[in-house]
């Protein structure tokens, strides 16, 4: 691996090249390629069952792709082999729809445990770092609370703090607000917006099209295991585009009574 002092290589930070994956005899990902530059946020949308979660897991090599490869900062995940894949994973933060916090640990220990077990940081330092990360997501004072004592929005913010503590180069967010009550979505989106504005590279699966379209340069539309459309939100979400993306987004925007292009990220 590169030493931290050497300059970052040119080219995209994340490069996904021709990733395919079958499970149970079904082709879930069909030669998917995408790339993200440093500091970029891209949004992945599409109908449920389209393979979005599978794609994020393959990028993380939590699921090994059958074909294709993932490059982070020019480093091939495949070439790292089974043994070193963990150091590859550490550099990618993953946020799950249903938080997946460790039920038996307090908020602070949820953040600290990976620092201790994976990065071998001494307990005191790890707890201090955890406290700082919790503050960053607006959870000062909640350190001692357990997942069962937190609201959905707070849980998701703990999980973001947990990922940030590992100093990831990029974050993958899989429908981070889908499991939340409507009134709690804003607090999580605010944190994500702050991160993006702070220069974090992110790939985010979401149905918050309005929110996303204000932060992203590019929307990727995924269906049946393929990225079928991509482009800037203004283009894809314009009625005139006649895109599948527009058709898909307008369908569930009707339900929530909003127009895809109109919704804005919540102001603070």
């Amino acid at each position, binding site marked *: 691996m590169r030493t931290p002092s050497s300059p970052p290589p040119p080219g995209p930070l994340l490069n996904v090249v021709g990733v395919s994956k079958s499970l149970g005899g079904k082709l879930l990902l069909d030669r998917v390629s995408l790339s993200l530059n440093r500091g970029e946020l891209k949004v992945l949308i599409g109908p449920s069952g389209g393979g979005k979660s599978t794609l994020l897991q393959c990028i*993380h090599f*939590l699921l090994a792709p059958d074909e294709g490869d993932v490059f982070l900062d020019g480093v091939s995940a495949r070439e790292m082999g089974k043994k070193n894949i*963990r*150091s590859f*994973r*550490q550099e*990618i*933060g*993953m946020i*799950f729809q*249903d938080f*997946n*916090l*460790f*039920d*038996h640990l307090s908020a602070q220990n949820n953040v600290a*445990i*990976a620092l201790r*077990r*994976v*990065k071998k940081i001494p307990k005191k330092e790890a707890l201090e770092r955890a406290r700082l990360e919790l503050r960053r997501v607006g959870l000062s004072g909640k350190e001692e*609370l*357990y*997942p*069962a*004592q937190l609201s959905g929005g707070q849980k998701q913010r703990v*999980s973001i703090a*947990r*990922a940030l503590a*590992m100093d990831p180069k990029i974050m993958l967010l899989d429908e981070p607000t889908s499991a939340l009550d409507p009134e709690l979505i804003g607090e999580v989106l605010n944190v994500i917006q702050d991160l993006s504005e702070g220069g974090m590279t992110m790939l985010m699966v979401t149905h918050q099209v309005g929110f996303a379209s204000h932060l992203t340069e590019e929307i990727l539309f995924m269906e049946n295991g393929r990225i079928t459309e991509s482009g800037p939100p203004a283009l894809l979400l314009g009625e005139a585009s006649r895109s599948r993306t527009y058709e898909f987004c307008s369908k569930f925007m009707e339900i929530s009574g909003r127009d895809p292009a109109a919704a804005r990220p919540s102001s603070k």
Partner: protein
Amino acid sequence: MPMGTFDFYANVLIPALNHGLWISVKIIVPSSLLGIAIGILVGAGRALGNAWLTRVLNAYVALFRGTPLVVQLMMWFYGLPSLSLWLEKNFGPGAAPVADLFRLSPYAASVIAFAMCSGAYQSEYIRGALLSIKRGQFLAALSLGFTKSQAFWSVTLPVALRRALPGCGNEIVYLIKYSSLAMLVTMNELTGETKAIASLYFRHLECYLLTALYYLALVTLATVFLRRLEKALSVPGERID
């Protein structure tokens, strides 16, 4: 030999029961700890192992849950030595070191029998708890860079053990009671002592009543201890059912 009631209690029955109690404790504590250890390993293997391992472990559980404990105990103590004889007959004196392994002392036979049987039951609770934990927490740990075994030991297992604890505690309470079977392989534990005194002095009612109280005290003590443990390990905000 006429004997006053007080004398009988103070000088015969209670000392004998106390001695028996001590032997019982020496059987119960190691077999319940061993049972838990077997339960964790077998339960984890059944919940997470490959098809082949799962099949072998399921067979173990089916065998030990599906046969009477008395029969198992007799097998360990009286059955296995026949195997030693057979080994020595067929493989000569060279087989003696192996053959000797199968001649268990009454104490060893009791502890092994109880631990193996208890382990089979404990594995059911552990397995159920492991399966009830959503894969998500394990996945989250892997995504942070944990190895699979780190994720198992520091995430999945601590959550699972808390969930399994009430069931495992019950099994320990059963074990306290079925430890009385050890008298069948000549152990002078609580029940064995009682039986000897009761038939010698022909005072069955008093003897067995007092023994029952001893067991009741043991079970109560274990129950209180397990409750405390559950409470100490409980996670704030989660329901305790």
